[in-house]
């Protein structure tokens, strides 16, 4: 991976640590409702489907598809890699299980809707930011 860009990091708490730090073990993790199997993101105290509270942290495959994206050209903060790709990806395990992320490891101009990607992690202090790269890369 190229030189790491500046990132504003999230405040890590007991509720979100599985998501932001799972990359230490190379895993993309979400809360999952044990009785009904629903993945819940962002983290919440209960399952939105069955309203149950038996949520456990589980890893997913990290495979995903790009739902949409934008190439950011504007220098909000100095960076060497403009334009860079911001995307919303949907995780294979569940329709609607999505997150905003960056697509890395490929030319920004090659990013497209429907692109198959897999999770990679970029370490910053205690945080492993989940990013995505083309599936074959």
């Amino acid at each position: 991976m190229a030189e790491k860009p500046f990132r504003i990091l999230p405040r890590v708490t007991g509720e979100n640590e599985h998501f932001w730090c799972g990359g230490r073990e190379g895993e993309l993790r979400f809360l999952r409702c044990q009785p009904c199997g629903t993945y819940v993101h962002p983290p919440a105290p209960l399952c939105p489907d069955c309203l149950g509270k038996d949520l456990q942290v589980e890893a997913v495959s990290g495979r995903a598809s790009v739902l949409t994206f934008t190439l950011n050209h504007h220098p909000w903060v100095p960076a060497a890699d403009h334009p860079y790709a911001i995307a919303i990806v949907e995780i294979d395990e569940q329709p609607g299980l999505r997150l905003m992320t960056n697509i890395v490891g490929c030319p920004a101009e090659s990013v497209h809707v429907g692109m198959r990607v897999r999770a990679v992690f970029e370490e910053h202090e205690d945080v492993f930011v989940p990013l995505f790269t083309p599936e074959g890369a």
Partner: protein
Amino acid sequence: MERMERRAALTGAGQSEVGRRLGRDPLELTLDACLAAIEDAGLTTRDIDGLSTYPGAMGGNPGFSGAGVTEVHDALRLELEWFSGGMERSGQLGAVVDACLAVACGLARHVLCFRSVWEGSAQGKGSRAGIGLSGGGGGGSFRASGPPMEWTLPFRAYSAVNWIGMFAQRHFHEYGTTREQLAGIALNARRNAALNPAAIYREPLSLDDYMSARMISTPLCLYDCDVPCDGATAVIVSHVDAARDLRKPPLRVEAVGTALRGRPSWDQFDDLTTMACRDAARMLWERTDLGPGDVDVAQLYDGFSFIALSWLESLGFCGKGEGGAFVEGGGRIARDGEIPLNTHGGQLSGGRLHGYGFIHEACVQLWGEAGARQVAGDPEVAVAGAGGGPLAGCLLLTRL
């Protein structure tokens, strides 16, 4: 079902000086707009018994709020029966909707509603500050917490232009919408702004200018982004029974839309080709026998051009996915077109008054006071809608 909002009417509208960077006290600008609206209605400060604003006082985000309820209340020594300020509501115009409900329920008779910004001055040399950067400083020790910042800033999505750019891109993908089409929104705004002395950017803007403009966040270029400014807007919401003998013919609130049925999020909304305006607009038409074909002027949020396109589709001025073709060339949305849009120049060319420029212009057009930009044919029905992403609220006003 009784439509409570029909007991409410718009009876006055006012605006302060509006400029790119005025360097003036934001509270003074706010009070200028408030006093203008009160006078416009033929009222005095003693008649005002309600106060409502978006987003209320905010310390951490310079320029985003020029004044809260407390400052205006005290400066004008108002005697209030009801007041409300805050941003967890149906978009920026949610504060006006709430005022309608307050008068309809008898909590107040004349509610002063205002919105004040000084983002132009706050952002200094004209570089548009990103959301969060302006609030958090972007320093190494700052950490993003809670929605939406925790789920956007770590991915270098510093601004709403990134978030809206992704909605626009999905629309482009599913419906074949193009930049040439989207340009219709910005070019229409500029043509209208040329006839509005209070608008900020009034020089002609061509399709070539648009197509060659600096890209900000694909597919949105510089001219798809509104212009931060300093200024304040105010309107008076009165009970219809208290509105009859005022200076202006009251503009009855025919219907409001406040719904948000999808997830309240920039990245988790179920349909990435539309936004919360879908839900607010659907609700609006559920509350009236009027339909899109009855509307004479539409004043719809264009914080980014794509948001206005999304409002046009949501309100049924064209079909879902047809917004690109509808605005292409700008003829249908021109002042003499099917549905005149953002006749004051919108926020794209008029200035980012954050939702309240639209309700102000809706009133001005219905009162026939728009001067050179007045829509012909004595418009009787106007719709004003504000908000992008998970923010949306709209009102249908009528002289009928």
